[in-house]
């Protein structure tokens, strides 16, 4: 795609923002009606696509600039090449973000004109000035960053890295700004004892932005975007590995896949806790949101989320397993027997602990911290060790157990109102469905993954990585991870919107349309899959045209792919 094409798309996006602000002033605008999907699903599709593109263009630059800095510091051209290739794809997807953003506003205005007008008026300064200005600034910096890549080499590299930092700064501010209206729709600002309607009328812009779920949503999205960007980098590597013609290319893309997965998994480890904080704040805002999510209409969405998280953790650990297989000398790596023992007792001990000292009571750390540090501290003095292979296999067993605990529901019913004894956990075992057990399951998944990376780190110190010789199935694991991460984002995005129940803005602006009910999980799954496939198609196209184009091949040597056998 040429620069002027991209600029045109960007202009379109900006015009849409401006037009929406103007259109919002038109009283009683007529309502459009989407055939087949209905208005709500139409908005859902466009909004989700926009968020996926936006998530990538905000998340990818974070690790791009880190990768560029690592390349500069270590003088390893592979990092620089990775950063540049991901930036190439980011530039294309940036245009798609603008396009879908403009489309989102148009669709929203056509289908829910009264509500959209109301929202824009409440955040007029953001929609009409701050957001467009940030968007323009980000566009200028992104293009400057991309087009100065080759010019600002050598002594000018530090300048280029700082430009990347600036890009991330603007990107993060943009995310935080737009999260204001988004989180406001979930948890509009309120004051104790005051009517919410009256409070909102008098509230300042900052009051509205700085609502209950604003910061938790910012953090959740920030970490989620990095996870997502990492897995997409893994996807890019997998595609390129599959299309590689030479050993050098395969070595490089094997390495890139590993780094992408490492970034994705690294950020993923924090994601369950960020999600927990967001859910905690939502429940704190209005306790009735909690049963709606966990025990009532959306409870099965969370079961599906448990299944997806479990699969993602299984796949990411399987990728480490496959990566270990290509390390010569891995069989020499051993670990204290305490590590698998801690893995096994962790879910039981922490369920009991969190039951006695519920989160956020810091007393539970008195058990958790010594337990996870036990292998490190006491392991030095004990002579018994086991092979890394055994530790990883015990880890897999515990990922399955952790996933089983996470997914065990209180009852096999979509709503508490339909609970009957034949479908309900026996009362003596209801703790399996409560938060202490779910938290311990999440922590077990995280702990096992960290241990696996520690083993990997020891393996590369004692052995030699043969890049490019990884089991081919690993490329499908990378693709699986990206697909599943996107699908889960779609699922949880739907949940975040649906917790508003029959309100556009919770408890403030009712949704009088006939579509304000909770859709079934099956119906949602169809659309989430469709959106994921549509996003995948665009991303795949972007990867192929940017990285597989003839002129790209000509530039291939710039990264000096690592030879087989290099660390």
């Amino acid at each position, binding site marked *: 795609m040429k620069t002027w094409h991209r600029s045109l798309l960007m202009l379109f996006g900006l015009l849409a923002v401006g037009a929406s602000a103007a259109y919002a002033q038109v009283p009683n605008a007529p309502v459009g009606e989407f055939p087949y999907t209905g208005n709500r699903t139409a908005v859902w599709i466009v909004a989700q696509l926009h968020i996926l593109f936006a998530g990538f263009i905000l998340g990818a630059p974070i690790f791009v600039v880190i990768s560029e800095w690592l390349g500069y510091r270590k003088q390893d051209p592979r990092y620089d090449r990775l950063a540049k290739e991901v930036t190439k794809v980011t530039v294309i997807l940036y245009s798609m973000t603008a396009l879908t953003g403009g489309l989102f506003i148009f669709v929203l205005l056509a289908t829910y004109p*009264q509500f959209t007008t109301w929202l824009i008026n409440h955040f007029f300064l953001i929609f009409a000035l701050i957001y467009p200005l940030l968007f323009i600034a980000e566009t200028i910096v992104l293009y400057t960053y991309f087009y100065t890549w080759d010019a600002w080499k050598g002594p000018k590299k530090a300048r280029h890295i700082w430009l990347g930092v600036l890009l991330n700064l603007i990107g993060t501010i943009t995310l935080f700004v737009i999260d204001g209206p988004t989180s406001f729709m979930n948890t509009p600002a309120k004051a*104790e*004892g005051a009517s*919410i*309607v009256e409070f909102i009328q008098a509230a300042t812009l900052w009051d509205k932005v700085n609502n209950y779920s604003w910061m938790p949503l910012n953090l959740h999205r920030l970490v989620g975007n990095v996870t997502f960007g990492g897995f997409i980098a893994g996807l890019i590597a997998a595609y390129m590995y*599959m*299309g*590689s013609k030479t050993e050098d290319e395969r070595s490089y893309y094997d390495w890139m896949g590993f780094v992408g997965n490492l970034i994705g998994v690294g950020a993923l480890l924090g994601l369950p806790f960020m999600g927990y904080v967001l859910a905690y704040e939502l429940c704190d805002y209005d*306790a*009735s949101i909690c*049963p*709606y999510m966990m025990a*009532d*209409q959306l409870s*099965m969405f969370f*079961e*599906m989320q448990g*299944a997806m998280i479990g699969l993602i953790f*299984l796949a990411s650990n*399987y990728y480490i397993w496959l990566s270990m297989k290509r390390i010569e000398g891995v069989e020499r790596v051993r670990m204290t027997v305490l590590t698998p023992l801690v893995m096994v007792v962790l879910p039981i001990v922490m369920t009991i602990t969190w039951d006695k000292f519920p989160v956020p009571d810091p007393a539970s750390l008195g058990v958790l911290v010594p337990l996870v540090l036990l292998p490190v501290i006491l392991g030095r003095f004990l002579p018994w060790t086991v092979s890394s292979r055994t530790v990883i*296999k015990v880890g*897999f*067993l515990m*990922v*399955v157990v952790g*996933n*089983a605990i996470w997914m065990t529901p209180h009852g*096999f019913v*979509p*709503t*508490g*109102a339909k609970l009957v*004894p*034949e479908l309900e*956990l*026996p009362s*003596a*075992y209801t703790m399996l469905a409560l938060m202490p057990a779910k938290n311990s399951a999440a922590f077990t998944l995280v702990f096992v993954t960290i241990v696996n990376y520690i083993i990997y780190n020891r393996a590369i110190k004692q052995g030699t990585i043969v890049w490019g010789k990884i*089991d*081919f*199935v690993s490329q499908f694991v990378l*693709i*699986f991870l990206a697909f599943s991460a996107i*699908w889960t984002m779609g699922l949880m995005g739907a949940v975040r919107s649906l917790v508003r129940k029959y309100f556009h803005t919770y*408890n403030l602006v*009712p949704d009088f349309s006939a579509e*304000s*009910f909770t*859709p*079934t*999980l*099956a119906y*949602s*799954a*169809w659309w*989430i*899959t469709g959106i*994921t*496939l549509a996003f*995948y198609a665009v991303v795949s196209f972007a990867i192929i045209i940017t990285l597989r184009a003839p002129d790209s091949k000509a530039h291939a040597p710039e990264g000096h792919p690592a030879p087989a056998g290099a660390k």
Partner: protein
Amino acid sequence: MIKKIIGGLVVGGILFGVTSALDFPQIFQLMFVAYAVLGTLVFSILDAPSVAPFSGLKAVIGLLAFYLVLSVAYITGASLWPQYDPEDEKGKINRILEPKRKLSEQGKTEELLARAKGLEEQAKSIAERLKNLSKDLPDASGGAAPAAGGAPAAGIPTDAKDLEARAFAIWQDQECYNCHKLRGEGGKKRGPELDNIGSYMAAADITAKILDPKSFMAEGFEKEYEKKKMPDKYKEVMDDKDVDILAAWLSGLKNTSVPTPKPIKKK
């Protein structure tokens, strides 16, 4: 591979046996067996032989097939979980939002349109009657249907059955059962059991508690009170009349065999 399948069957069998002995419902027994199957699958994949690289058309077909499998698996997986029936919710949403809709601009517009239509019909009928009167005065009779009027203002039902039916519908619509146990159903210990609330609170007190959750605290629910577990939203989302009906009904619940905690006035 065979060894792993046998191992999986043994683990699945043990889980099935143990959960049967512990009186887990059948669906949970099957769920534990499914986890054993997942474990078997995971351990089989771990030791599966390496896959040789492939590229070109074969890779493209492989990728498309992979995406198809993932899509089908995720849609099927999501469809296997119990599905919430939106029909259960639609009537409830309508009942809750109807008063608000009437108050909204949209409601006002619709009301104006309805009134205009009614007036138009009335005008037509008067014109028709005048026409008939002028034609045949002795046979003239008032044939025009009166315009539809609004529903009579309804207060709190005086009949106990009516009150029970209306109040229980409000109880369900507002999902009070999610936190409060009543007649042995609902509640997750977030809020007190309410079967004997009428022994402690008059309707006016219950109304005050619904509209301002900080006005009373149930004994033994200090933590929940401090954490503001009862949402401070009903003054916004509930119709005043519905609050009165619910409060009147709850104030009549005096089942002394249920240990409803004593409310303490805080404001």
